[in-house]
Each structure stands twice: as C-alpha cells, then as structure tokens.
C-alpha cells in the first residue's frame, strides 16, 4: 500500500501546470483531490513518474453564472458543489448528485474535474453532467477547446482529453426550476452506485450501465413522444451493456435501471 516512488511538483498557476504537462506528457499525472488517483497508485496499478498537484490552484475553484450556463471550475470540491447557492438555484441536480458521492471526507477532497477526468462509469457526477447536456473545457499550451460531454467519455477510465490537456471548466445549462431527481442505488450509504439514474428536464443519465455514463435515449424519446412515465421508464435499459460484478448481474442492473428511472421521473415530475 505504498506507491512506487514519484517526483512531485505543485505549480502555482494553471499555466505552470500546463507547462509541466507539456514537458512530461504521459509520464506525469495531474492530481486534484487524489481520491481516485492515490488508491490506484497505492495498489500499484498506476505508477506516474511525476505528480502535478493542482489541488491548491484557487483559479480552478469557482461556481458562477455565465450567460445561459453555470461555469464550474474543474478544481471545485464536491462539498462546494453540494453547498453552492448558485447551483441550488440554477442547476440543483448537480448539487444533489454531489451530495451522494462517498462520504463527507471524500467530498471535501474530491473534485468535479477529477471525477469527470477519471471517467469511472460507476461515478455519479459524469452521468449528471451528461444528463444536463454540459460541456467540458480543456486547455493546453496549444489552446483551449470545448468538448460536448456527449463526446467526452470514450471508454472505461478514458476520455477525449489529450495527455497535455488540463480539464479546466465544466459548463452546464441553467435548468432553474425544471424537475430533477437522482436515484442512486447502493448497498451501503457511502458505496459507489450499483446503478444510478439522474433525471433533469426530461433527460436521463445512467450510472454504471456501460463502459461510459449513458443517456437513456429510448426513454427520452418516448417521453418526448408523450409516453407515460411507466412506459418510458420500461425502455431505460435499451442500448445499455451493464457490467457484471458481485453487486449485480446484467439482468439485475437492467431491472434496476428501469425501476430507478421510473422513480426518478416520478420524483422529477413532482410525484
């Protein structure tokens, strides 16, 4: 449970971090909250030669309204997202989902950027941003680009982010008073989701139902076509390839996705 030796740098600015990333490329790992990175390093499943600690970069920690969107700095802790007044008013789903991540200790360390960059299909926030139809902002010395969240996740633990890029911002639409709900199904309060379903404004994001977070498109289309919640929810597992592990078989996860989608849609509809 001791990681392989590594060098450590704590740049004082995003530009400093980008310079280090550009220089060291794939040999380096950015560390934000460290709550996904350090466990894999301790188990020696990852052995970066250089750790670039961005956890203290205040320029990456903010939540603000920007036009039709809310912009969230990638280094914003889950606990801040959870308690943000801006999000409570403008995108309550995100705050509500952040509240279900791990336990208070985890939420005080982990960051929204780290959660998205890590791209664990069992994580909560990626599916929430997907349901919201957000965008991620990536920066490198080559420039800054925005990637729609629908194109960001490319597989288990993999994203469209290049090795020299830093995830700097997450942008989500202001959903205001639109109905939302998050159904996270776990065995224990601080576990990862066996299946999770995030619903906002008629869009449905699924946690742990495939290689990446997924949208329940069949359900969304049915709803748009005027189907009842029960009928639409019955389609929630369509097109999914859920994993199989001790907590659930494929069949069980498909079943849960349907049940939880129905419950989340009902809650979001004010029922």
């Amino acid at each position, binding site marked *: *449970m*001791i990681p*392989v*030796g590594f060098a450590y740098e704590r740049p004082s600015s995003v530009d400093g971090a980008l310079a280090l990333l550009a220089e060291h490329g794939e040999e380096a790992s950015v560390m934000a909250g460290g709550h996904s990175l350090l466990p894999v390093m301790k*188990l*020696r499943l990852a052995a970066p030669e250089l750790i670039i600690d961005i956890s203290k970069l205040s320029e990456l920690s903010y939540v603000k309204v920007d036009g039709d969107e809310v912009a969230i700095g990638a280094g914003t802790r889950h606990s801040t997202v959870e308690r943000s007044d801006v999000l409570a008013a403008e995108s309550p789903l995100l705050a509500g989902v952040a509240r279900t991540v791990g*336990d208070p200790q985890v939420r005080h360390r982990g960051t929204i950027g780290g959660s998205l960059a890590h791209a664990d299909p069992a994580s909560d926030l990626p599916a929430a941003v997907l349901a919201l139809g957000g965008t991620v902002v990536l920066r490198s010395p080559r420039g800054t680009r925005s990637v729609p969240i629908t194109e960001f996740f490319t597989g288990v633990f993999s994203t469209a982010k290049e090795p020299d890029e830093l995830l700097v911002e997450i942008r989500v639409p202001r959903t205001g008073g639109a109905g939302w709900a998050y159904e996270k*199904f776990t*065995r*224990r*309060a*601080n*576990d*990862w989701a*066996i299946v999770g379903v995030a619903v906002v404004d008629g869009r449905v994001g699924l946690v742990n139902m495939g290689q990446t977070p997924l949208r329940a498109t069949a359900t969304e289309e049915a709803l748009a076509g005027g189907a009842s919640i029960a009928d639409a929810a019955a389609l929630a597992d369509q097109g999914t390839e859920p994993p199989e592990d*001790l*907590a*659930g*078989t494929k*069949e*069980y996860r*498909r*079943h*849960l996705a349907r*049940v939880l989608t129905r419950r989340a849609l009902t809650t979001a509809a004010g029922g």
Partner: protein
Amino acid sequence: MSIMGTRVRRVEDPVFLTRGATYTDDLTDERLSGALHLTFVRSPMAHARITGVDTTAAREAPGVVAVITADEMDLEPTKHFPAVPDAMARPWLAKDTVRFVGEPVAAVLTEHAYQGEDAAELVEVDYDPLPAVTTLKQALADETLLFPEAGTNLAVAFGGEDEFSDDLFADCEVVVTQEIVNQRVAAAPLETRGAAAAWGEDGRVTLFASTQNAQQTKGEVAGWLGVDPGLVHVITPDVGGGFGAKIGADPEFALVAWLARHVGRPVRWNESRSENMTGMLQGRAQLQTITIGGNRDGKVLAYRLDVLADAGAYPRIGVALPTFTRMMAGGVYDIPKVETRARVLVTNTTSTGAYRGAGRPEATAAIERAIDLFAAEIGKDVAEVRKLNVPPPDAFPYTNKGGAQYDSGEYAKAIDTVLEAAGYQGLRAEQKARRERGEVLQLGIGLSCFVEITAGGMTAEDATVEVHPDGTVTVLTGTSPHGQGHATAWAMLASEKLGIPVEKITVKHGDTDLIPKGIGTMGSRSLQTGGVAVYQAAGELADLAKQRAADLLEANVDDLEVADGAVRVAGTGTSITLAELAEKDQLRIESHWDGQMPSFPFGAHLAVVELDIESGKAVVDRILTIDDAGTILNPLLAEGQRHGGIAQGIAQALLEEVVYDADGNPLTATFADYGIPSAAELPSFTLLTMETPTHLNPIGAKGIGEAGTIGATPAVQSAVCDAVAHLGIRHIDMPATPLRVWTAINAAQNGSDA
C-alpha cells in the same frame, strides 16, 4: 454505596481520544531501534506449483538487507491444529506449492518499509497453476487434493456416518429440510496484524505482538522456533480489535522472530489492509444441511444438523469450532432427539479461525432457521412454536443433547419481553395491511432466541492485586483487553473490595515477564474468569489487611471492615489505611480462580426490516434485544459490547461475505468490495434488560461479548425471509444482498423479469 452495576466511564478513553493508542506499529521502544522492516512476497495464485524463485534483482534493490525463501529456513512445516493429517502441515514460507492467494512465499528485509514494497515486486516467482478448490462440495469430492499425501481434503471429522439413524424422523408428522450457507466473513479489525522482535544479549527475544493473549503467543512462538519458552518475552501493546482472529500467534509472528535472529537485527512487520483481507484468519464458512421434524401442534421431535466446515488452505483453530456448533445444535429448545456431525475440509482459501461467536452463531443460525421453516410448514406463528419448545425455568440446570449443562435460563420470558416491547401483534397487523395494499416497501419480522456458551473450555484465570504505599493499586490480569474495557471493569472490582477509587487503580496485562500466567480474552470469558479472579484477589487482600491491622489496632479481626481504602474498627473512629499497611510490609495477593464450568447466556432478538420488493434491498428498521448475561457489572460497557455485536450480526445477515472466484481469487479484498457496515446502515438499537445470575461465580456474571452476533444474525435473516414469505419464498441465504433477494423474488415469480 457499591460501585457494582454502575455506569463507570471507561478509564481507557481519555488517552485513546487525545493522544491516541499505541499499537504495535506505533512503538518507539529502544529495543526496536534500527529495526528492519519485513515485507512479504505473497502468492497471487490460489493453487500452483512453484517452479522457480529468483531473488537476484530484489537483493540488489536499494535498502535491501536480506531476501529469504523457504530454502534458507531451518524451521520445519508445522501443523496448527493437532488432529489433522500430518501432510497438512504449513510451511513458514511456501516451498513447492502455494495453496491460497496471500500465502507468504518470500520475506524481504529492508531498512525502510517503502523499500520493502519496491523490492518485493522484484522477486520473480514462477507458478505452474493447479486447479483450485474453492467450495466445500468441491473439496468433499476429493477430485483435486490440496495435500496429495494426505489422500483427502478432509482435515477432521466430528461424528461419523453412523451418527445418523434411519428412523430419526419416524414419529414426525412433518419433516422439513434445507441446505443453508453460513458464509465466510472477515474479522477486519481496524488495527491489522503486526509484530516486532528484538533478540537481546541474554539470548532472549522480546516479541511485541498484536494478539488477544500474550501468554499463549509466547508458548506457540517458542514451540515453533524450538526454543525454551523462558527465552520468549511477549509484550502486547494496545490492540485495535481482534474479534477472535487475533487469538494466539500468527505464523508470521514466528517468522518475525526467526528473521530477527537470522539477520541479527530487530525486525518489525505491519501488514496492509489488502494483506489483512487475505492473510488474517476468517470466520464462519459452514455449509449446513438442517432437517427438523415434529407434529402439527408445534412440538419439535427431532433435529439433524450436518455440517461441512471450511478450514481454508491450512487447518488452524477454525477446525475446532464445529465442536461448539454440534454441542449447541439444539439451541434453546428441548428437542427429544438431536443428531449432528461435522466434516472440516481444506480449500484453496484463507485459513479460518474464531470470529465473534466462533461456532455458536453457526449453531444458532441453523436451528433458528429450522424452527422458522418448521413453523411455516405447519402454519403456526414463529413465536408460539418457539415458546412451545423451550424448557421451563425450573428445568435448570438443563443438560442439552450435545452434553452441555445450561446453568440458568428463562427463555420464554426473554421471547415475551421482546415481543411485548416490539408490539408484535401490531407489527403483524401492519405487515398484513402492507401485503394487502401490495406496497413496494414490505415489512418483515424476524425473531431469534439463543443460548450460547461463554468461558467454554477455559474456566480459570489468575490475578494479582497490590496496594502500594502511596495508596495506588496495581492489578495484574491474565486477560488481554482489546476494546472491552477491562482497565475500567477490573478497577471497579478491586475498588468494590478495597474502597479505593478506580482512578487510583492501574490494570496491567499482556507482558509475559510481568504476568507469566494467563489465558487471554476470547469466547466472552474475561469477566467471569479474569474479572472474578481480580474480585477474589482483592477480597483476599482485604482479608490480609484486616489480619495485619488486627495486631496494629489491637482489635479482633471480626470487628474490622475495609472501606474507603482503610481498615476500620467497626463503629469506632479507629482505622489504618491500606497505604500505611503497605508501607510496613508488601500488601499483595496472587489469586487463582476457576469457575470449573462454562456459563450459558441467552436472549431473544426481534428485528423488523423494510424490504423494497422492486429492488430487493432490505433495511433494518428496528432491532430489539434481550442479551441476558447474568448480573451486569457496568451497563455502559455491556451496552457497548451489545452494540458492536448487534452491528456485526446485522452485517453478516445483510452485507458481509468473503467471496472467491472459481480460480480462488479473492473478490472482496478491499473495504470498497467487502461489506463492513457503517452507522448509516444500522438503526438505533433497543436494548432490553434481563439479568438472570449464574451460580457459577460470586458476581453472578456470564459473558456478553458475542451475544449480539449470535442473536442478531438469525433475527435479521428471518425478517428478510418473512418480508417476502407471502410471495412463496421460504429461505434466502446470507448475506441477503439486494441482488440475492431480488433473484429469489424473481424466481418465485416464475423467472419473469419483473
């Protein structure tokens, strides 16, 4: 006023809550200065032949002082349980074959701990995989043998084929049989295993070790090393939990001491959580076949329990536990005919040992399930059937069919008490209403009634009490607290006899030079053995003080009384303090107590679960318990024991299970995968009071450490089954995870995916 029975706060806690405990890994003892750190290279394979070990690269890594393999060791493989075949001896480091994931293959000694992990990765071991035996039925088939020279995977059999009669159930109107799993669980103490050893100029070794009993550890380690026990000095620092899995010495302890001698430097070892989850003894692991028969009026006439128990790869103390399971098979019930047998088998998994309850929870879970199934079959209420079959209070002492003599018990009263406190009839009405309304959240009510054996087998303990000239008191005990609060409880017992406040009384334990005799803390034995020994020693000390004071005060011994730390002539102002007496001559008593017989605490638990029939998730809404452990010395400590036990009991019923895949890879080796509960998974507990004293000792106390795991587990399992009983489900194995419950519901609804 007597201090007995009062809620004295734990004297241990101020240090734990401020500075923190000193566990083996925290020691800064000068004997350990310059110690090397031991890192094990452990097998990643469950069953394989070792075809080569190359340590060249590791030996050259930074900080490496030695890399040891089986070839360099002169210790013979050793059996860790006498009655098993010789071929099942465990090598200290695997030589030709590895038999479980986590088995030590090589030992790396480095100046710093981190260097050890780096170097261990460089040890190259070539494995030639063998088929793994991971289930008891596979082991029984004897197709793959762990120890071919033994010719069988059977480590021990208790009771043969001829134990079972053909006509056991001949008189019964109803017979029900069921195979049930009492799953393997991990002890998972917060402090993982650790030890440190330093050999002195005098040829003696000081072994610091995280254990539940220093004296047994000393004997075992001396035996394994082949040295005179007088050369081994074991010291037990603070121990962060054991739950039975730290009873005695681990084989790793002997390696730590052997390596320290081999390289001529102190050695320390502390395992990681991942190592702990595969290296430390695990518990339960029984596959039981129960058959129960009786009449439609509810009377049980015969019961059979057939046990397959998992020893893990190398038989250790877990092998012995089915004897408790057999002895306690009939539980609280007066069943005319009871037959049992147990076969203990080796598998390519972590070895098993004692785990909170150790053999008795397995018995209770089986008989309680059997009673439920029988009641369901005849359509009678589970509480009614239970009460119909328990012996009345005047039947005690009562000898059960396993030969155990129950000292005292009022089982029907325990059942009635929990039923009444829970509002049983109201709960049944609520359950019925929810069923009729077809609600998603169904109610399940589970009842268990249990009797267990405490201080089983080891009924004696020693204590020394000494009053010092400054008025303070030292108590030496052979018990070995690791969370139980003996420093508080034993001080209360001495205080009661001497009238000296607990703040002035220091309880010492776990140092074999200071306290050569002791059995330790396990099997809910400590208060009724070690505690009573302290009570007796303090009483004898008071008598000694009176005798000495009689001369000094020119009074008759019969007119003297000990109170407030002094000997007084009753009814006068004349007195002399115990401190003054100690100043004149050492005031110290060594005493030996032997209660001769174990005691049999009992109780009843009632659990209410809410079960989401769509998802299969069950949540314990309420649990009410009677845990009658005789007279309670300190309710605060007793409640703490009950709380912890109930939590662990609920966790076995709903969450915890050590799982291996078909190749013998552990799938639950981290706390992310292994289901230890947090407070969030548990309701508040309703602890009900009942104290039926035992006549076996002067304070009337029985053991309480394991009651929770014995009573809560079957109550919760039963509640889960009860919640879905209306769907035609009779039994769901533990842990009743959402997946397992949903699978059962799904199957009951004809395999349709609801």
